[in-house]
């Protein structure tokens, strides 16, 4: 059964210069217990997609089309009290900057207690809450949970703060955990530990995960299926191993080639140019401004997703004659 399904989602932001047409028909599905990844450069709409799905959008954003279904319910028209209940019991999000996600003037104990209290509808005694909080911290591989609970965020290192965020996310993420660049602001050895902890926990509990990252290697080691986003569109999707071993869309190929390799094959070419402005995005394929393989038809309509092999599809007209 599908836990989350996004169909033809369109999203715009209103800014001083006009309307930013960011998401242009996003289709994404997440099965129960599945781990998916969304990769792409910065400003490609990765975070906007999940924020729209979880109804966490900024006030200048408007969903102009599409549907989001979560556990069979329509997320976009859900009444507020029902949404709050879902957020308290079913889903959670981990953000990129662990310091910004914690309140600096409350101890970890105060912050965790509030969350546990509301997620259990106030049915637990203080002692039970304390036991639960300790349990979550231990699960996130934090030693000395008593000391952590008594600490303010500034007394903890970046890695520990992110572990606290994971522990807090566990309180309410019984079904879905969205991790938005969870290791990006951390050092590589700490990121490695955090990702391993996270993977162990979600696998044990069978939580579905959406991992957002621009670090391709991190995503490759974590998720079952991957979506590649470019300029507000999904250009390729498929099983992680297939997409990385044999990318089909020119953007995915070029993105993977851009990453310097440990094997030392020299400096890759990169992708010339930059993500187009969302004020006046190209009408056809949005990658057209940077694509070395562009043909006449790319300027017309946005390319549909072509299935290139089972479960693996790519939105590029180059696949048309092979259908």
């Amino acid at each position: 059964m599908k836990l989350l399904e996004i169909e033809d989602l369109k999203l715009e932001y209103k800014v001083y210069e006009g309307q930013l047409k960011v998401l242009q028909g996003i289709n994404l599905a997440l099965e129960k217990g599945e781990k998916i990844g969304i990769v792409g450069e910065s400003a490609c709409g990765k975070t906007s997609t999940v924020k729209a799905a979880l109804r966490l959008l900024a006030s200048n954003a408007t969903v102009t089309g599409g549907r989001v279904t979560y556990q069979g319910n329509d997320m976009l028209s859900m009444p507020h009290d029902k949404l709050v209940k879902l957020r308290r019991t079913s889903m959670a999000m981990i953000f990129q900057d662990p310091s910004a996600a914690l309140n600096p003037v409350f101890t970890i104990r105060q912050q965790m207690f509030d969350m546990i209290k509301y997620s259990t509808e106030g049915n637990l005694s203080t002692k039970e809450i304390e036991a639960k909080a300790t349990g979550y911290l231990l699960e996130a591989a934090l030693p000395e949970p008593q000391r952590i609970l008594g600490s303010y965020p500034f007394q903890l290192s970046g890695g520990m703060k992110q572990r606290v965020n994971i522990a807090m996310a566990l309180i309410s993420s019984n079904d879905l955990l969205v991790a938005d660049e969870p290791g990006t602001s951390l050092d590589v050895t700490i990121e490695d530990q955090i990702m391993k902890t996270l993977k162990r926990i979600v696998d044990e509990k069978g939580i579905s995960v959406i991992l957002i990252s621009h670090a391709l290697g991190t995503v490759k080691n974590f998720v079952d299926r991957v979506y590649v986003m470019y300029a507000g569109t999904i250009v390729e999707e498929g099983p992680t191993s297939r997409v990385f071993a044999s990318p089909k869309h020119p953007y995915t190929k070029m993105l993977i080639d851009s990453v310097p390799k440990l094997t030392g094959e020299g400096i890759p070419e990169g992708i010339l140019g930059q993500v187009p402005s969302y004020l006046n995005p190209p009408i056809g394929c949005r990658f057209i401004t940077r694509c070395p393989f562009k043909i006449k038809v790319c300027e017309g309509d946005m390319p549909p997703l072509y299935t290139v092999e089972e479960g693996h599809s790519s939105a590029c007209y180059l696949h048309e004659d092979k259908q």
Partner: protein
Amino acid sequence: MSDAILSVENLRRYFTSPEGVIKAVDDVSFQVKKGEVLGLVGESGSGKTTIGNVIMGIYPPTDGTITFNGEVLRETSKKRSKETIRQIQMVFQNPASSLNPKRTVRQALETPLKVHAKDVDVGKRVDELLEMVDLPSEFSERYPDELGGGETQLVVIARALATNPSFMVLDEPTSALDVSIQAKIINVLMRLRTKFGLSYLFITHNLSLMRNVSDRVIIMYLGKAREVAPTVEFFRNPMHPYTKMLLSSIPVITEAEEKLKPEKVSSTGEIAGALNLPAGCSFHPRCPFVMDICKKEVPPLLEVAPEHLCDCYLYLENRFGQSARIGS
């Protein structure tokens, strides 16, 4: 060695804070040879940026000397000669904050020319500089907010080139950029290096990038150099347990890369706080091979294989030949 353009000896830089002394850089010595790209790699707090800043004379060292082209550098840039300042330039991590938002690209590029270049057609030289970094000349009238992140960094590189330097400190020049753009910046930097015979001190936390750009690598951890080796040798035979931990932590894409990662050293523990460094080897609380001596004595950085230095007691027993500090 006479072929060194820059030589750093026993460099220390301590910072005092209300809580105590932070040894940001603690007795580091190395040389950058002419035309070489020396990679300085480490996690946050390892002191790599501090080394770059001390070389630039942004603040003075607590102890130690820096020799540039055979001449001992004065402590801060204010005391240095105009010629020395001209020769050593720097590119910072965040391109957006490196340019004045109220001045056009042309104005940004003209300033170093007016200070350092004599008898130069400034307008023509600005166009030349933009061409060197593959930017069209129309860009000269733009303001920084009209440029993309990669373009901004190219302008910063052009500005650093304006004085015809012979040595550049590149402090994480691509960390704030997407990988697709990183490649472009690195390619421009490497082409300029060949064209003008530049030497770089390339500071980064990205080992994969380092593998592809540098000739030699220094691995820093908590203010000390832990391992120094030519890049190829370094990746073929990483020695220090910290280096192995770092290598095994890198998320990679291909199977070939996966095979290069050392096994068995998985990442544990946290980087110690700079105020309370562990006694002995400051890596010992995280080290899976820790011995008694590591908790008491600070290991010296010694040559354990040809041109390969490492400060770990695991290798000191059977090191080859005579011990030697870097540069001596």
